[in-house]
Every structure is written in structure tokens, then in C-alpha cells.
């Protein structure tokens, strides 16, 4: 079947989901009211709380939530066949992610645009705040570890990508400084940055950088590990710089790359008319992780991402002009993420190779499939770009540069966010020195994921994809579970139908706890000490958090919200604790 035909069908399904299901949610479940005075109007300060056109808010929201993570999970999950992977991406986006992202935004709007963690504390229990912090801590630890290894692997596999990516950093700093000092427009300098980046792809191809000799000279067996160490050293420094100095100009370059990459995938697929050569359902070898529950936590953000609730409630809710705009901004944000995940599935099943036999060689078992997943996506996009006339070797480096750029920016931001979380946890625990020392908190934020990324064992691919990615998926789904609990309790308290939130909540929690339990058993039987003494305890801790979440969710759904509400669904009581900068 041509990949473009599948893309069109998925697009139609997403459209129907938005047209009908989100309309049902808006009217019957969240009962949006165009006359409701949103927090943006109530607290309009022209800084954080600003009533804003819905297209402006969507532009901000989408670029905040769309990135590299929805690429990784689906590119691994096609191991079970493209049918189940795509089915969960489509169903998950329409019935889980849409409900979650839109719901988090709707709840936040009715809670004075507070962050989801604070609302969880208000609505569920005081303990929910601690639970939330711990889940996010593990989520960021795992995502930073995974992305460091993603980049390390891509650098080792595509040494031609090193020069463009490394030189992008001073280019971005220069652009940031130039715009700041000269107060000039950002568009042309950032486009020049993109052109320079792509010119450097040619330079990188001529001068590939291989760290293997250096790694072996200093006693590091795997050159990927040297890259991982260098990456964390870089993010420690980068996370201390003001956002406008490096992160923002890099993001600016990346936002152009996002649209270029989406265009290349769509057009390349259309021009090349690539057939999907992977099986609809793959007959996986014995001993592989089972489709239930592992497909769901592997796809993770490709179908539903708990992290979106942080963006929805943290920033987006403060800018919503009319409450009814939440449908477009929240639900379409989820659809955008689902579209990226669909592109990843098609690149890894239609773009990357031309025959079923070649595909089977890339996905012979779960370890190989997961270890090579990002590389397969990169090669797939490379083939799509090649369809448009770009020489294949350059096209592959181009695709690697796009993925690494996104992964590196996610790491930059992830380490920065982790520092905030470390400070929050330290404050809560009464460790004031750690809470107030940015360098110390930054060191903790870097050291923990670094240790995770360097866990020995797991063969050539390491533990990162086979194991750490799935553990990341569980924390991501737990974050979504917490947000869905908040949504369900609020909807129930308003005497509306909570099932649209409760059904995905139950499904996510069931898949997550099942996966964690099953993995724990495997780890305890593992041959290496890393499995028995690092991964098993880590899995156990996340399992305890999952059970804790289930207890909190059941309790909250049975007893109802801790907050009292008026008839419109807005909480009664003072607003002294409204979140402000």
C-alpha cells in the first residue's frame, strides 16, 4: 500500500476526530462557554496573562509540544507491525491525547490558569503534589538519558552530522547576540542559520568526526559513551545560559527545520509513491515483549503525552481569549503530535527500505529493532528527501541533523526543567542549600541521567532503547494519568459524563502497571548486575508511583474533588495562590 494513501486516511480520521469528538467534548463534557471570563481577561497583565487570538496561541502551543519524542516510540513500535502501531496512534490521539490535552487546558481555565500540579494538589490530595514531582523527576531523568544516547548513536552512525550540529551552537549564539545587540529582525538571520547548517552538512560529509580513537585512548570502550559524557557537560553549561542567548535562536532555526522536514516527508512520499513494505501485523520472534502492554508504553508520546498537560496548563491557559478556543488549541495540539508520529511510522516502514526482506533484516528482534529505530527513521526520511532530488548520502545526513537538532534542544530544555524540579523537591524536603544553589541543582540534574545513560550491559544497543525508553514511556503515561484523573474528578464534580476521561485513564494505568510488573520480573531474573540492581529497583520505584497514583485516582473519583465549585464549574475560595511569574 502506498504510504501517502495511509497518510491521507489518517488525516481524514484526525479531521473527523476534531470535527465530531472534540465538539462533543466541548459541549457535553467540558461545557465550554464563550461568555466565561477566562483568566487571561481576569488577570490581564500584558505579560503572562494576555487574551490572545487562538491562531497565535496555537502557534506557540504546537511548537512547544512538537519535537523528537513522538518520532522515537513509533519508529520502535512498528516492530509489532505498522497496523497496531498506527491504530494506537490514531485511536490514542483521538480518544486519549485529545481528551487529555484539551481537558488539561479546560480544567486550568476554570482554575485561574494554575499549573496541573497545583490543581492536582487542590483537586485530588495534598500528597498528589509530591507524587507529581516524583513522576516528572523520573520522566525527565529518563528522557534526558535516552536522548543523550539517541544523539550519541546518531553521531557514531553518521559522523558527517557532527560538524553541522556542533557548529550550530556558536551560530545560534551569534544569531542570538546579533538580534539582541542590533535589535534586528530574527527571520533572515535564522534562515541564514538554516542555510549555513545545511552547507555544513556538505563540510561534515567531507570531514566526518569519529571519536572512537580518542575514546579508546582514554579507556572508554564505546565511543557513544564519550559523546554522552560530552553532551551532558554541554547541557550543564547550556542550561545556565539565559533562554534567549542559545535556546531561543536554536529553536528558531529548528522551527524552520520542523516545517522543512514535514514538507520533505509529505512531498517525498507523494513524489516517490513509496510502498509500505513492513507487515501489517508482524509475527514477532518468541521471547519478544508482547504487544499488550508494551506497544502502548513504547509509542508513548506518539499517541498521548502527559507532558502536554504541563504546557497546556502552565502557559497556554494564561493566553486563551475565549474558553471555546480551548477546543482548537488543545485538541489540535494533540492531532499535530499524532501527525508527527504517523510520519515516523511511514518513514520506518515505507521510506527506509524497498522490500519486505530488507525490512525484516532491520527488525529481526526487539533489541535490534529498538536499537536501530531512530536510524531507520533517519534513513527513511533520507529516502523521502532523495525522492525530491537530494543525493542520498547528503539526504541521510540532512535527516540526521534534523533529528539531532530536535533531540539536542529537548535535552537542553529537559536538563533546565530537571534543575527546576530538583529545586522544587529540595525545597519540599527542606534541603534549602540544594534548592537555592543553581550549580548544585544543575549538577544533580545532569548526574542522574548521565549515570542512567551509561549503565553497562544490554549488548551493542545498550539498555537505552530496549529498556530505558519503555521506562520513560511509563512515566510519561503516568503523568498523563495524573492529568486525566484531575480532568475526570472535575468533570464528575460538575455532574457531567466522566467516561471520556475515565476510559483512557483506566486503559493507560492498566497498561503501565502491567508493563512495569512484567518488566520487574524480567529484570530480577536478568543476567547482569545492572538489570538486577539498577533497572529492577528503578522499575519498582516507578511501579510504586503507579500504584500510588491508582490509589489517589480511585479515592478522588469516589470522594470527589477537594475543592468546592460554583454552578459554572469554577472553584470557590480565594485566588491568592494563583500562579504568577
Amino acid at each position, binding site marked *: 500500500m502506498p504510504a501517502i494513501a495511509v497518510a491521507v486516511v489518517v488525516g481524514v480520521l484526525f479531521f473527523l476526530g476534531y470535527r465530531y469528538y472534540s465538539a462533543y467534548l466541548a459541549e457535553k463534557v467540558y461545557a465550554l462557554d464563550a461568555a466565561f471570563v477566562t483568566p487571561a481577561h481576569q488577570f490581564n*497583565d*500584558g505579560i503572562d496573562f494576555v487574551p*490572545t487570538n487562538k*491562531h*497565535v496561541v*496555537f*502557534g*506557540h502551543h*504546537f*511548537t*512547544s*509540544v*512538537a*519535537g523528537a*519524542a*513522538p518520532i522515537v516510540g513509533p519508529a520502535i513500535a512498528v516492530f509489532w507491525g505498522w497496523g497496531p502501531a498506527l491504530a494506537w496512534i490514531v485511536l490514542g490521539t483521538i480518544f486519549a491525547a485529545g481528551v487529555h490535552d484539551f481537558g488539561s487546558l479546560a480544567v486550568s481555565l476554570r482554575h485561574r490558569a494554575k*499549573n496541573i500540579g*497545583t490543581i492536582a494538589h487542590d483537586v485530588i490530595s495534598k500528597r498528589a*503534589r509530591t507524587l*507529581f*514531582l516524583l513522576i516528572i523527576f523520573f520522566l525527565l531523568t529518563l*528522557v534526558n538519558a535516552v536522548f543523550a544516547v539517541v544523539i550519541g548513536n546518531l553521531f557514531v552512525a553518521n559522523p558527517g552530522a557532527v560538524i553541522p550540529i556542533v557548529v550550530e551552537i556558536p551560530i545560534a549564539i551569534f544569531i*542570538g547576540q546579533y*538580534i*539582541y545587540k542590533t*535589535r534586528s*529582525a*530574527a*527571520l*533572515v538571520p535564522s534562515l541564514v542559520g538554516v542555510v549555513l547548517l545545511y552547507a555544513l552538512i556538505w563540510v561534515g560529509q567531507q570531514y566526518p568526526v569519529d571519536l572512537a580513537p580518542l575514546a579508546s585512548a582514554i579507556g572508554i570502550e564505546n565511543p557513544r559513551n564519550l559523546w554522552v559524557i560530552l553532551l551532558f557537560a554541554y547541557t550543564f553549561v547550556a542550561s545556565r545560559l*539565559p*533562554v*534567549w542567548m542559545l*535556546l*531561543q535562536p536554536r*529553536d*528558531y532555526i529548528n*522551527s*524552520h527545520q520542523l516545517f522543512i522536514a514535514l514538507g520533505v516527508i509529505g512531498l517525498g512520499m507523494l513524489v516517490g509513491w513509496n510502498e509500505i513494505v513492513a507487515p501489517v501485523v508482524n509475527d514477532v520472534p518468541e521471547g519478544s515483549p508482547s504487544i499488550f502492554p508494551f506497544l502502548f508504553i513504547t509509542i508513548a*508520546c506518539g499517541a498521548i*503525552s502527559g*507532558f*502536554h498537560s504541563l*504546557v497546556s496548563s*502552565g502557559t497556554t491557559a494564561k493566553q486563551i481569549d475565549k474558553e471555546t478556543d480551548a477546543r482548537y488549541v488543545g485538541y489540535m495540539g494533540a492531532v499535530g*503530535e499524532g501527525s508527527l508520529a504517523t510520519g515516523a511510522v511511514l518513514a520506518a516502514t515505507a521510506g527506509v527500505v524497498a522490500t519486505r526482506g530488507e525490512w525484516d533484516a532491520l527488525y529481526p528482534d526487539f533489541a535490534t529493532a529498538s536499537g536501530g529505530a531512530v536510524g531507520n527513521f533517519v534513513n527513511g526520511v533520507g529516502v523521502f528527501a532523495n525522492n525530491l532530488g537530494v543525493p542520498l548520502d547528503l539526504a541521510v545526513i540532512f535527516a540526521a541533523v534534523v533529528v539531532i537538532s530536535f533531540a539536542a*534542544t*529537548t*535535552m*537542553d*530544555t*529537559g536538563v*533546565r*526543567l530537571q534543575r*527546576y*524540579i530538583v529545586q*522544587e523537591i529540595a525545597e519540599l524536603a527542606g534541603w534549602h542549600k540544594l534548592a537555592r544553589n543553581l550549580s548544585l541543582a544543575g549538577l544533580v540534574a545532569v548526574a542522574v541521567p548521565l549515570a542512567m545513560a551509561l549503565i553497562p550491559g544490554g549488548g551493542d544497543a545498550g539498555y537505552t532503547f530496549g529498556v530505558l525508553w519503555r521506562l520513560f514511556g511509563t512515566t*510519561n503515561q503516568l503523568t498523563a494519568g495524573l492529568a486525566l484523573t484531575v480532568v475526570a474528578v472535575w468533570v464528575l464534580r460538575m455532574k457531567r459524563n466522566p467516561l471520556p476521561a475515565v476510559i483512557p485513564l483506566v486503559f493507560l494505568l492498566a497498561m503501565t502497571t502491567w508493563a512495569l510488573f512484567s518488566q520487574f520480573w524480567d529484570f530480577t531474573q536478568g543476567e547482569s548486575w545492572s538489570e538486577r540492581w539498577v533497572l529492577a529497583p528503578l522499575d519498582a520505584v516507578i511501579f510504586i508511583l503507579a500504584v500510588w497514583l491508582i490509589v489517589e485516582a480511585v479515592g478522588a473519583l469516589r470522594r470527589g474533588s477537594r475543592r468546592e465549585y460554583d454552578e459554572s464549574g469554577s472553584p470557590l475560595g480565594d485566588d491568592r495562590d494563583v*500562579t504568577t*511569574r
Partner: protein
Amino acid sequence: MTVRVVLVRPWTDAHGGTGCCGGDARDGICFEGRVDGPREHDAEVNLVAEAYLRLRREMPEIDVQIVGADNTAYLLPSVFRAVRGRRGTLAALREVNRATTGGSVLVDGERVGDVTELGTDGVVREVRRRAALPTG
């Protein structure tokens, strides 16, 4: 026809962050937040805020938005559409670029000045002039 005014956030009022698990690198993403490093850019942020609030108060009939300089998904097509009809494609492309300058004041897609240079009074005056509204 409604006059559309866009105030572009200062370059230093950056939120940054890309992507799932990395979006929106701002302090207090989970809870109350704390001040993260030097905030020397607050003066300019406050100036934009002040201009915005005055425009809303004094000219409620116009449409005022605050947009990040990095929000190209909105700025680029909206400015291009607004200007091309009146001044042609080349001028529209030039305005598209100018619109991404932090601190810009855009009236119907055209950059009419900079918040820092104009000051709050200047922004209000300039918007009134462009909108051909009677001064009050």
C-alpha cells in the same frame, strides 16, 4: 474594518523549548516557580505590557495581540496576507522579515516602530494615527 495591532514580545522575553518533554523552558512549569537568573529584560517586557494595556483601555475597538518573535507559524502568514493585498508581494516579504523584530509594533501587518523607541505614549499615538481614530 477592525484595525489589527500586534506587539511583538522582546527578544529577551524568550520561552524557548521545543517538543514533547522539552517544551516551554520557563520557571515554574510545574508549580509556583522561582526567579531563574538575571531578569534584566523585565523593563522592556513591562513596557510592552503597559502599551498593550493602554491600547486595550483607550481603543477597545481595535484588535491588539502580543505575539512572540519566535511564533513564525502565526506571524509569517498573517503579516504576508495583510500586506500583500495593499503593497504587493515584495513589500509583503520585507514586512514579514521586519515583523520578527522583538519589540515591534505592527499595524495591519506593517511595522510602524519599536516599543522601546516609541515609548508607551508614542505607541498609542502612532496606532491612533495609523488607525485614523480621533485623538482623545
